[in-house]
Each structure stands twice: as structure tokens, then as C-alpha cells.
């Protein structure tokens, strides 16, 4: 009897472990099965490189090139703003912060990670958009607004992963440098940080993943015009926001093309994940 129960539960645990495999398989099947036919109908290259997104016109055109460019612009902006601040803050936490202060600062940064993206979006809508409208011109709904907001949103990701990478560097690196007469800053920036490079890179890639996948905060501040922008003060539409804006009323090929947009986004994310796990593996071997 007990043997049977043991065997049964072993099977139950095993099946539970398989659920994540099943989930990934289902997600792939349903996205691809609904997205690929639409892509084929539009024409793969016309879909990816088409400059015009006009799903309601007759004949309609479904080019998502502006959205791919939009996602890349907004993500690049977030990285330019978020990475320097994030990495330097991680250095602060790992190498400067006194223990007493750390007990306050660390939870504050975790709180930054816990704030919902709609709240960020609402904040961007109320503060960043009017600020840019007043001081830099344009409507305020722009690549710049989205980049600033996403730059803040990816901070906790970058700080968390970078900090643990910096902490993983053996103490001897730092102590050796100081023993040779280096100042604290020189020891940190010339020996510890270079040794943590692959971990810091991993944090940046994770940040890219967060930024490219963010939807609600972007949709509220980016303006959402489906065209290739010519200035950072112009509005832009990303792949994520394309889906969320039109899915509510789309049908037929239009709906298919939105799912296909999701497929392209999914492929982007898979590549980013792959890059991240390669880098993370390298970090593990290094230490």
C-alpha cells in the first residue's frame, strides 16, 4: 500500500514538473498556428519590411516595419538612460553603501521593481509627457517620454543583476589593487568592475528584454502613431502596443496580423533569452 502511494506521488510530482514544458509548447503552438498563416497571406517580407500599417483601408496593408523600428528605438533609449544610472547604482550598493544605509536603500530599489507598470504609465502621462511638451515642444507623447519611463522601469533589473555580479568578484581583486596604492575608486573601476563585465552585460540584456516586452507604460506615453519616426520628440508605436491597441476590435486577417506581430515579438524575446543564458553560463564558469 505505501509503496503504491509512493509510486503514485512520484508520478504526480513528475507530471507537475512537465507542466512548464506543456505550457511553453501550448504557447508556441497557439501563437504560431494563428500567426504564421497570416504572415504567409500577407507575404513574409511585406509583413516584416512593409512601411505602411493601414489595416482598415481597402486594400489594407500590413507592414510592421515601423513597429519593429519603434520597439528598437524605445528600447535603445531606455538602455541609454537606464544602464549608466543602474550600473553605477549597483556599484554604489556593492562597494560604497554602509550597512545601515543599505538596509534602507535595498528595499527601496525592490519597491521600484514592485510598482505596477500602469502606475508608471500613469506617472509618465501626468509628469513626463507634459514636461516634454512644455520644455522641448511637440505633443509630449514621444520616443523620449517612453525611453525615460522605461529607463526608470528597468533600473531595478539592471541594479539587481549587476550588484550580484559585482559582489561575486573575489575580494582579493579589490584588496590587491588597494595594496598596490590604488584609490578606492580606481580599485573598483579598474579591477572589480571589469571582472564583473559578463554579469553586467547579462543585466543589460535582461533590461532589454524587459523594455522590449513592456506594454502598458509605453502605450500611455508613446503616442502610438504607426510610422517610422524622424525625431525623438515624435510619437511611435511598438510591437507590444500594436497588439494591445487594436486586438479589441480586429477580425480576420487584421487579427491574424496582430497575432503575427506577437509572434515576431516572441521570437525577439527568445533570442534575447538565449543570449542571456549564454552570458549567465559564462559568468558561472568564470567564478
Amino acid at each position, binding site marked *: 500500500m505505501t509503496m503504491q502511494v509512493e509510486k503514485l506521488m512520484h508520478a504526480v510530482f*513528475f507530471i507537475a*514538473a512537465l507542466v512548464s514544458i506543456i505550457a511553453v509548447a501550448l504557447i508556441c503552438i497557439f501563437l504560431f498556428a494563428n500567426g504564421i498563416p497570416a504572415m504567409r497571406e500577407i507575404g513574409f517580407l511585406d509583413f516584416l519590411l512593409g512601411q505602411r500599417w493601414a489595416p482598415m483601408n481597402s486594400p489594407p496593408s500590413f507592414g510592421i516595419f515601423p513597429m519593429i523600428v519603434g520597439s528598437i528605438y524605445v528600447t535603445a533609449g531606455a538602455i541609454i538612460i537606464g544602464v549608466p544610472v543602474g550600473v553605477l547604482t549597483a556599484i554604489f550598493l556593492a562597494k*560604497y553603501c554602509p550597512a545601515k544605509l543599505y538596509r534602507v536603500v535595498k528595499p527601496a530599489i*525592490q519597491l521600484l521593481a*514592485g510598482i*505596477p507598470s500602469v502606475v508608471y504609465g500613469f506617472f509618465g502621462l501626468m509628469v513626463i509627457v507634459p514636461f516634454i511638451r512644455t520644455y522641448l515642444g511637440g505633443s509630449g507623447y514621444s520616443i523620449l517620454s517612453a525611453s525615460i519611463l522605461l529607463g526608470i522601469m528597468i533600473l531595478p533589473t539592471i541594479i539587481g543583476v549587476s550588484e550580484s555580479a559585482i559582489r561575486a568578484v573575489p575580494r582579493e581583486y579589490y584588496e590587491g589593487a588597494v595594496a598596490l596604492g590604488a584609490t578606492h*575608486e580606481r580599485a573598483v573601476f579598474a579591477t572589480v568592475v571589469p571582472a564583473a563585465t559578463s554579469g553586467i552585460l547579462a543585466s543589460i540584456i535582461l533590461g532589454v528584454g524587459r523594455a522590449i516586452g513592456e506594454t502598458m507604460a509605453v502605450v500611455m506615453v508613446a503616442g502610438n502613431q504607426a510610422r517610422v519616426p524622424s525625431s525623438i520628440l515624435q510619437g511611435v508605436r511598438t510591437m*507590444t502596443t500594436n497588439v494591445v491597441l487594436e*486586438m479589441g476590435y480586429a477580425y480576420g486577417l487584421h487579427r491574424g496580423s496582430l497575432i503575427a506581430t506577437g509572434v515576431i515579438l516572441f521570437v525577439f524575446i*527568445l533570442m534575447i533569452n538565449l543570449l542571456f543564458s549564454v552570458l549567465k553560463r559564462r559568468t558561472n564558469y568564470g567564478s
Partner: protein
Amino acid sequence: MGARLKFSIETARRYPLSFVLKVLVVGSALLTLGALFFLLAYIIVNGVPHLKPSLFAWKYNTKNVSLVPALLNTLIIVGIPLIVTVPLGVFSAIYLCEYAKKGSKVVEVVRITAETLSGIPSIVYGLFGLLFFVIYLRWGYSILAGSMTLSIMILPLIMRTAEEALLSIPTSLREASFALGAGKLRTVFRIVLPAAIPGILSGVILGIGRIVGETAALIYTAGTVPRIPGSVFSSGRTLAIHLYTLSSEGFHTNEAFATAVVLLIIVLLINALSAGLARRLGG
């Protein structure tokens, strides 16, 4: 380490580069914290004055824009995924830590898929939920469809934290249990799992935080109806979606601020809970 934060003119003159770097490091930390406090203060200052009783009326209408139905929906949409995913995630972690052989192929695939799941953006979960639960299974926009979508979304989180908790239990505990004649199952449920509960709980709290803040995965699965649902097959908006609709409609900015305050208070409570738990685990 306090000495490292002191700025003196003498050292600045002797090591100008070091001085600049120090200014940058401290400046960045201040900028990060400044962004957080500005955001919190801005929303609280603008929102608290609008926390009127009408906002907490039992029924929503366009006049009072009550957030109570959304709050109740949020509770339901937090509850169902936890009921579904906590046992699944914990069992799956038990398999990975206690049962699977080292270097097993299945374990490797499970790890890779769990990592993949945790990187998928919420809008892709939303699309999947729409295609699978709403359309294929014909559940329609419903609390259940939204809950199941979120169940998958928080699965990797629950799995990872449970796994870490199980791995932190010393092997000697298991050996002692075996030595007393307990079987594998009894050891897992009576010895290992109770010791791992605080770690599992911290994962659960993180999961609650993610669900409370989720929007993109819910908008096309649970829908945006501002009512208390009759059953799990009717649509209902959560607090985060409520805030999104209010701010995108643009008619109720004050109420949106107040809703954001309520959402922030919930997030702050969850964070405090998880920090308290982490302190207990560490100490």
C-alpha cells in the same frame, strides 16, 4: 565603509578622476532613489485628497467611478492562480530537487522551459490567453480565462523560489528522517516541506505582487467590465485595469490618482510583507 562616502577637497585635487567617479556613483544612487520618491510623493500628494467615500461605493457607475468591484475582482484573480499554481509549482520543485536524478534530460528541459516562461512579456501571455482560453476553450472574456493565464505566468516564479527553498534544506535532515525509518514521501511532506515553507511563502508573495500589477495579460482575457462578476465565467476588471481605463478615458483624472494611491498602498503592503519575511529567513 562610511569613509568612502566622504568628499574632501584635498583628495579631489590629488585624485581628480577618482573624485569624479565617486560623484557619479553617489549621484546615480541619489537619482535612482529620487525617481522612486518623486513618483511615490507625486501620486500620494495628488491622490490622497480624492479618496472620497463615493469611490468606495458597493456598485460602480460612471458618476462615482467606484473601485470596489475592481478591488474584489483583484482578490479573486489573485486567489485562483494561487490555488492552481502553488501546488503545481511546489510539486514540480519537489520533483526537480528530491526525485530527479542528477543530470537528467527531463530536468534540463524543465529548467529551460521555466526560464523561457519567465522571460515572456505579459502581452504575449495575454495573446495566448485570448487564443487558448477565451477562443479555443470558449470561455469568453472571463475571470477564469484571466486567472488561468496568470497561473501560467507566475508558475516559473513559484517554481524557482520553491526550488531554492528546498535546496537550502540541509541533506542531514533528510538522512535523519530516513534513518528513523521514514519513507521518501513522508520525509518530503513531514520534514523537508515544513522547513521550506518560509521560502515558498516569499515566492507566493512575489507572485501576488505580479498579479496585482498585471494589466497587459488581463485586458483581453478577463476583460474590462467594471462589475462584481456573477460567476467565474463573467468578465471583470482588476484594479490595475481600472486605473488604465480611467486614465485612458481621461474624464476622471482625480479618481485615477486616488485609484493609483490604493494600488500603491497594496503594493507597499506586499513589499513590506516580503521584506519582513526575508528578514526572518536571514536572521
